[in-house]
């Protein structure tokens, strides 16, 4: 009996993880990607002057630097390597 319960629990855990991985995480990855995209665009508005896009208030944006200092370099690399935005979007929805 004990053995049966144990197997049942293992089976249930497997099912939960399978469900998480198949439905939740996959969908959430789309949401997360969307969030990162919006954030990247926001960074462009905040620190566009590093890429040569003038910003009316780059002086005030400096006070945000301490909080985004770690993200800044990868963001710069990402944003400069963007070549096919449509392909990028398509990949997000499994159309690649």
């Amino acid at each position, binding site marked *: 009996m004990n053995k049966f319960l144990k197997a049942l629990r293992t089976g249930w855990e497997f099912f939960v993880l399978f469900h*998480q991985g198949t439905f*939740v995480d996959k969908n*959430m*990855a789309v*949401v*997360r990607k*969307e*969030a*990162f995209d*919006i*954030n990247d*665009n*926001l960074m462009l*508005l*905040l*620190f566009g*002057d*590093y890429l040569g896009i*003038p*910003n*009316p*208030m*780059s*002086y*005030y*944006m*400096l*006070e*945000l*630097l*301490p*909080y*985004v*200092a*770690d993200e*800044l*370099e990868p963001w710069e690399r990402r944003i400069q390597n963007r070549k096919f935005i449509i392909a990028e979007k398509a990949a997000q929805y499994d159309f690649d």
Partner: protein
Amino acid sequence: MKHFTFFGGKGGTGKTSCAASYALSLAARGVRTLVVSTDPAHSLADAFDKPIGFQTVPLCPNLWGLEIDAEVEAKKYMKSIQDKMLDLVSAAIVDEIKRQIEIAYMSPGAEEAAIFDKFIELMESVGRDYDAIVFDTAPTGHTLRLLTLPEILGAWIEHLIEKRRKAMDLMKMAARYDKPLAERIANDPIILTLTARKDKFALARKYLTDREASVFYFVLNPEKLPILETARAVELLSKHGIAVGGVVVNKVIPPDAGPFLEKKRLSQEGYLQEIRSRFSPMTIIELPMLDDDIQGMVQLQRISALMGGLDS
């Protein structure tokens, strides 16, 4: 008397003399007054014939002076950011970021923004350290930009906050099963910082558009171009909700000036008529052309009685 009095106008019309003598008249009435120059090319010290710098100095009983130095203010601001950064990120990244700070420091608008920050700081000090602040502003174009800055930037920053909030909402959705991450998102420092900045702009705007607290006076000469420029500036300021209390007509040639200036005086007469009809509901004060430069306390006192008429 209003808490904040601004003197503006075309370059060379006598803004500084007017601001200084008006401040003197306030101080003589026992009002604790601070006279501030926001013009990057300061001349307040010359008007008082006393050294004034980026730190407040007492000029006479009840009167203090200050010349805002954009560079000093900007350096202070950068320093505070670098200090904060050292607490949050590693020293290696700080070095990398220093480069970015340098870029922003050189960017157009940095000087204006630095002056504006100091400006807000001073406005907040009214009631505590001073009863009134008299601003000797830069020539018209620069000042109009400075005063309309909060409205424009307020809208821009609103948009940034909205965008960040949207990203954060999505992150929150994705982090439903990740408690610590969700908590960190709720206290997002970027939204907090942007909101603090927005509130500061809103405060400046509240002070500037409050007709009980702030008033703007234009200084002009009885000549064609200053009249046209002043008329345009008055229109723009009222469009942005800033009250214009009146105009000070400086360098009016007195009738007993003699034959050499008589022709000039007659043409001024015409322009004075035009000024009176154009700006009539507002207070109009006429200052005579003096035979000497206005420099030093004694000279300023000569016109401060006339400038005191702005409050009546």
